[in-house]
Every structure is written in structure tokens, then in C-alpha cells.
């Protein structure tokens, strides 16, 4: 019973990590940019949520009305820079590593290196929980799972059903041909990077509602998030969600059965196996798509 509860709880948490991963995965797949600064935006989103809720008394969930547009701008701005200087895939990794380090240090200087969390009177959600059958789930986890699932499927629908989404897929497959057919990759890239930034703000809010933040939090996310990106398949939106749920469930189960410290080992063994046997991700899209 504990095992089942742990796996379901892990799967729900996993969809929050899938939300963190989906923006990265789309930028990597469609724009050939590996943006570690995405983690900086999640971190900033989380800290701004704590600050806005604590100082202005906003509802934590409502803070995304401010942080999401702000991170949209920052995301688009970073992408504009990458585009302007024609940055390659590997160089984007290095440059955004620099940006991440700078952000982490600024956050440390502004908010100190100590844990930050909202007190229960500001963040009543943190004390609520919902009983479903024999299982009890904390509200923040359910909230994260709900947001994560809805947003990732929303992104999937936009990609499949709209002209812009299809144009992005075409651009991800062959940039030159897509450009030759009149796809304005700059504007699309800016919108995509902006949207990824906004999703980072939402992920930051969801994390801050449930867990305490430190400036080093990004380095705890990176391993798991990139495991999800690789397992889900780079640029594969629904695959990212499934991989997030899978990674979360496995982590939860291994933590209970063995030890929490063994969870990363299990996840990375899975990544290595997947790279050997399923290099296009665990959930490849159908051929001819």
C-alpha cells in the first residue's frame, strides 16, 4: 500500500517536472538551443511568487499573472540574443550555463542562501490535502499535477492543430527548407522561447507552493529534468509528460523500497538503457508523422 501511494505521489510530482522539461525539450528540438537559463527562470519565478505573496499579500497562484508575462519577455529576449549571434547548439549550452550561474548568484545576494518558504497564512494551500479513496494527497501536489497535465496537453494541441505549431515542427525537421517555404522562424522562435519562459514561471510558482526554495534548487532539478527530456524524446511534447510521470513513479517507488538517495541512480540507469535501446525516446511519434 505504501508502495502504491508512493508511486502515485511520485507520478503526480513527475508531471511538475514534465512541465519544467517541456519548454527545454521544445527549444532543443525545434530551435536547436539547449537553454540552461530555463532553470534560472524557474528559480526566479519561484522566488518572485514567494516575494509577491509575502509582501503584497497576493494569492500565490495569482502571482503568475505577473511572473508569467515577465518570464515570457525574458525568455524571448534570451532567444533574440541567441538568434542575433547565430549561437550553435553546444555554445548555447555554455552561454546559458553562464546565465544560470549569474542568476543563482544574484538570487543568493538578494534573498540569501537560506531556505525560503511561504508561511501557511499566506499559502493556505500548503496545509490542505485531499483524500481519494484510501490515499491522501497534499493540495500543492495535486495543483502541480493538474497544471502540468493541462499545460503540456495544451502545448501538444497547439503544435498539432495550428499553423504556427506545424510550422515549428517543419522548422525543427529542416531549417533551410522550412525557411525557403516562407516560415518566419525568428518570430516563431521568439514566441516559442517566450512561452517556454512563461511555463518556467508557472513551474516556479507550483514548486514554491509545495516546497522550500534555495538558490541551489536548479542544480537539484537539472538531472531529473534532463532525464525526462531525453526519455520523452527531444522535442516530443506528450512524450515529455509520460516520461515525467514514469520518472516520478519510479523515483517514488525506489525511495520507499530502497532509499531516496538511490532514486537518481535508478533514473539515470533508465536513461542509459533508453539511450542504448531507444535513442529516439521511449515514446516515439508514429512514422510518417
Amino acid at each position, binding site marked *: 500500500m505504501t508502495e502504491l501511494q508512493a508511486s502515485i505521489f511520485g507520478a503526480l510530482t513527475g508531471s511538475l517536472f514534465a512541465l519544467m522539461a517541456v519548454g527545454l525539450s521544445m527549444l532543443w528540438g525545434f530551435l536547436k538551443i*539547449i537553454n540552461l537559463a530555463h532553470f534560472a527562470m524557474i528559480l526566479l519565478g519561484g522566488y518572485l511568487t514567494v516575494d509577491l505573496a509575502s509582501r503584497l499579500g497576493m494569492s500565490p497562484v495569482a502571482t503568475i499573472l505577473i511572473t508569467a508575462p515577465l518570464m515570457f519577455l525574458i525568455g524571448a529576449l534570451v532567444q533574440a540574443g541567441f538568434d542575433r*549571434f547565430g*549561437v550553435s*547548439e*553546444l*555554445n548555447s*549550452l*555554455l*552561454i546559458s*550555463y*553562464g*546565465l*544560470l*550561474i*549569474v542568476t*543563482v*548568484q*544574484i538570487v*543568493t*545576494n538578494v534573498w540569501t542562501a537560506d531556505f525560503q518558504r511561504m508561511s501557511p497564512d499566506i499559502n493556505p494551500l500548503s496545509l490542505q490535502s485531499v483524500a481519494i479513496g484510501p490515499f491522501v494527497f497534499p493540495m500543492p501536489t495535486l495543483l502541480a499535477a493538474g497544471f502540468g497535465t493541462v499545460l503540456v496537453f495544451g502545448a501538444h494541441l497547439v503544435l498539432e492543430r495550428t499553423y504556427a505549431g506545424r510550422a515549428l515542427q517543419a522548422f525543427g525537421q529542416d531549417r533551410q527548407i522550412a525557411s525557403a517555404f516562407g516560415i518566419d522562424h525568428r518570430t516563431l522562435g521568439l514566441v516559442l522561447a517566450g512561452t517556454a519562459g512563461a511555463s518556467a514561471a508557472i513551474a516556479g510558482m507550483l514548486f514554491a507552493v509545495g516546497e522550500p526554495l534555495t538558490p541551489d534548487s536548479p*542544480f*537539484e532539478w*537539472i*538531472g531529473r529534468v*534532463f*532525464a525526462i527530456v*531525453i526519455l520523452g524524446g527531444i522535442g516530443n511534447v506528450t512524450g515529455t509528460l509520460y516520461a515525467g510521470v514514469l520518472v516520478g513513479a519510479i523515483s517514488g517507488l525506489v525511495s520507499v523500497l530502497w*532509499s531516496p*538517495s538511490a532514486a*537518481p*541512480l535508478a533514473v*539515470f540507469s533508465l*536513461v*542509459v538503457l533508453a*539511450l*542504448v535501446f531507444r*535513442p529516439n525516446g521511449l515514446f516515439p511519434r508514429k*512514422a510518417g508523422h
Partner: protein
Amino acid sequence: MRKRSWVAPTAVALGLVATPVLWEITRFPVFYLVFVSGILFWAAQATSWNILSGYSGYFSFGQGAFFGVGVYTMAVLFGRHGWNWLFVVLLGGVAAMLLAAGIGAIAFRLRSLRGEIFALLTLAVPFILAAVVRLVDVIDGGQGIVVPVPAFPEAVAPFQRFYFVISAVVALLALTAAYLMQNNRYGWALFAVRDDEDVAEGLGVPTFFHKMIAIGINGLIGGMSGAVVALNLGFVSVEGTFNLRVPLFVIVMSVLGGRNHWAGPLVGAVYIHTLQNRLADAGFDGWSLIVLGTVLVLLMILAPDGLMSRFSRRPWQVSAAFVLVLAGLAMFGTWGEPVDWLAAALAAAAIVAFLPGRGVSPAQRGVSSVGLGESRAFGEAMKTRGENWTPEPVVTATDVAKSFGGVDALRGVSITVHEGELVGLVGPNGSGKTTLVNLLSGALRPTSGSIRLAGAEIVRLPPHQIAHLGIARTYQIPRPFSSLTVRDNIAVAIMFGREPKSLAESRAEAEEFLMLVGLTDLADVRPEQVNLHERQLLEMARAMATRPSLLLLDEALAGLNPVEIDNAVAVVRRIHGSGVSIVLVEHLLRVVIQLATRVIVLDQGRQLAEGTADVVLRDPAVVTAYMGKESHAPGD
């Protein structure tokens, strides 16, 4: 004459200069000893990182793992159990090397682990290690470990002087390794991997082996350096060891100094450590990561080649600026302290290096002149053979098939190429010609079927072994090693040929192949400075430099103008005349008719026709495949 000999003497000379300088430094006041020891520590870490990540282009964020293994080996075995510290320094290196070999054995085996995914995997390794170290009580258990001051000889007292000496030894080890590798086959294999790994493998470079060597050295020196620094720390903790300092610093230092030069990371270490020291002195401790992160971002965008490449453009001006500023400030002595003088001199050198204006450009573009006259010099081996000579098969492919995820590119093709043949391989787009070339060269493995080279099965062999057995290829779109000159592109192929050769021997031997294709005048320019025709000639010369018995030319004449085509045809004739069998994939039927002794036509992955050019190209089935059903054979 063997020019090779200058490398070792230069290394010895550098050592002879460095030793008294370092000995002089040991007399410095303790403050400066600590400062220089810091530079030496970072020089060792960054140089070891650069041997893998700079030379081979496999970018690692995992330096902290090798460093951390070294630190904790010293902390546990010397700090807790009192083993001999010198022995533990070696053990720390070996332990980190084993970890590196483990990472390499997984990561480098997988084709799908391209550079970016390798980088991300290495990003995760230190965090996993940190979790293990924190939880396992035998190692740390989250409490941290005290490392006492070791016993050291009186001659190097006080401790700071002793620590300086062992730091210098490790740093010199790292720099010597990097220097030697830059001038021998171990380094050049990595340069070829960095520029184009598939091409390197196809030319005979055992890429997996050389990547393992590189990551092993990275681990060994990173671990030894970590073990040494643990002696200076006094107390080690998980948080203090597995953090971002080490990976960030080695990357910034190497990018700043230059990743293509053995001394680049050293230069970067001097700059960054001095900058750090001055920032801390001015009370900006909390700003150092912000400054370093910003420096990394700006460098990657504005000067990704680093300082060393700038220095080498105007070496005298840079040295003069450095010496003048340092000596001037020291003589007046009214401003600052020695580290300030050093910082000012370093800044002056960097400013001079980045001043606008023309330095000596690395290579002046030459004029191509393809000497057709020399073609007679290459023996026409075919004619000297007797009348009763029967050609042996060079390569025999039997019923080979290849499918890509359900799409059949080749559906069972059997061909044999004999000694001295020049087989034209033609067919419409998508007929499987390039796939066949990829199977013969070992770049792809067939789904089924057998390929025998001189009687031996080669289907399961890695491409570099197939290259050594005598198959070479060119690429339709030329893929030269972009960081090497035209001559060195050929030299790499010679160096990693059947019989290993030194760099100097290979460079000398490259002349022969430059002459073969008529690129002698362009020997010292970079491939990006030559035109498409010349790059295609370079492809042929580089393939010939592996001394193949069978040469696969994959559309080696695509995109050329008529004059260039005539020249390329002459070169192919010359190569054929020297006794090499050739498979020529070509769309230009005029060229095929001129050159081929036999023609094979592929269509939709099957062999459609075979025979002499004039017969095959009139075959109605061939005409239909090319022109569609309504057409008539040419000449009707």
C-alpha cells in the same frame, strides 16, 4: 631528415627554464606562495579538462566529479586512516581515472550520445556522487572530514612552501601531457574527432580508444590535483567539494585562454585567479560568480577562440606590453602591491592582443595550379602487367540489404570489384548508391548479407579497421577537418594508417599526395579558404593517403564547372593508373562513359543492369528507370 626531434628537446628546455623559476618562487613570502599555488591548482584542473573537452570537443561539466573523488580519497585514506599521503595522491588519481573510464565506456560506446548529451550526462555525475558521499558513513556521512597537516621534509618548510612544490609537480605533469599530446598522434586523433568524428574513424583513427585515453588522463590528473588540494583544505565537506566552482572555473579558464592550445588553460588560470584574488581583496566576494558567468557569456559570443590565438598573432607586442607595465609599476613602486602590478600587466597584454588592426594572418591564400604534366610520373601499373594476368576480386558484397526503420534502401545487392577495375555506380536518386558506399566503408552495418575484402569478412568491423584493411572513401559534400591545414588533413590520414607514423613523417609524406591531386600550392591554407573543386581534390588526396586498395568516390565531381570536371577526371585517371581499384558514384554519364571499365546500375535498392558503359546505358530497363516509361533510348 626527421624533424620530429624538436618536440622532446623543447619540453626538456621548458622544464629547465621552469624549474629555476619555480625554485625562485619558493623563496617568495608565504602570501605569494599561496597565490601562485592557487594558479597551479587551477592550471592542473583546467589543463586536464582541456585534454578531453578542448582537444576532442566532448564538453564535460563533470570536472567536479574527478576533483571530488581525489579530494575524498585523500580525506578518507589519509585523513581518517593515516595512509602515506604521497601514495594516496596517486591512488586519488587512479580512483578518478577509473570513474572516468566508467563514464567513457558507457558514453563513448553509444552513437546516440552526441556531444550535447555527453555534456548533460557529465552535469549529473557530480550530483549523484555528492548524494552517495553524503549518505555513506564510511566515506563522509554528511559530517565532513578533518585532514591533518602531513609530515614533510624540513627543506621545504613551512607548509605553504611544501604545498607549493607538490602543486607545481602536478601542474607540470598536466602541462607536459597537454604539450606532448598537441604534438603527437594522441592529440591529433582528438583534433580529428573534434572536427569530424565519422570522417576520422573512416580514415583509420580508432576514435573510441583515443577518447578513452583522453577522459582517462582528464580523470587521473583531475583526481591527483584534488587529492593534493585536500591537504591544503584541512577540512573537507560535501558542500565544499561537489559544488559548481570547479566545473565553472575550468570551463571559463579554458575558454578564456583558448581550447586549441596546450597553454590556453594555463593562461586562463593566471587571468581568472588574479581577477578572483583582486575581487576578493576589494571586498566583492559575492560578485565573483556573477563576474565569471558574465565573462563566460561575453567570451563565447565575442572571442570563442580565446587569448592564446590572439597572443600568437602579435607575440612580441603582447610580451612587451606585459613586461613594460609589470617592470614599470615595480620600479616606481608607488601604486599597489605586486599582485596589482601583475593584474595591470595582464590587462595591458589582453588589451594589446585585442587591439583592432591586422595581425599576421595564419595563412595567406595561395593560387591553385593543378599540374597535369606530372600525371605521367605515376606509374601506369596496369600496362606493366603481363597479358595472362587475371584480376583477383578486391571486394565482394553478397546479397547485402539495408533498411532504415521499415524503409528498404538496399534489397539484396551482390557486386564484386576486381583489381584494377573502375566501376561506375549509377542510378536515379534514392536508388541506394550512397547507402552501398556507406556499407562498404563500414559507416553503416548491413541488415543482412556479407561483405568480404580480400577474402575476409568485414561486416562487423569498426570503420577504422576497414580503413586499415584497404577501403577508403570520399564524401559527396566534402568534409575536411576544418581546424587543420590542407597538408595536415592528409597527414592525419597517413599518421593513422596501417603503419603508424609520426607527425613529422606524415607531413613529409603528405607532399606526395598533394602532388597527386595538384594541391601543393595550397598546402598551408585552411580548407575553408579553398573552393569546392579543391576541397573535393583534398577529399581524394586524404582518402589516397590511407593507401587503399579500393577507393569509393561518392559523387566526387558534383557541382563542378566543365573545366574543373576535366581536371578531376584527369586526377581520377591518375589514381586509377597507380593501381587502385575505384568505385565511382556519379550522375554525370559523360564522366562515367569516359572513365568506367564496367558500369553497375541500381534502381530502388536493386541491381538493374551491369556491363560496359555503352551497352548498359542503352538497356531499355535502365533508360526507363532514369527517364520514366514514355522515353526512348538515346540515339533512337
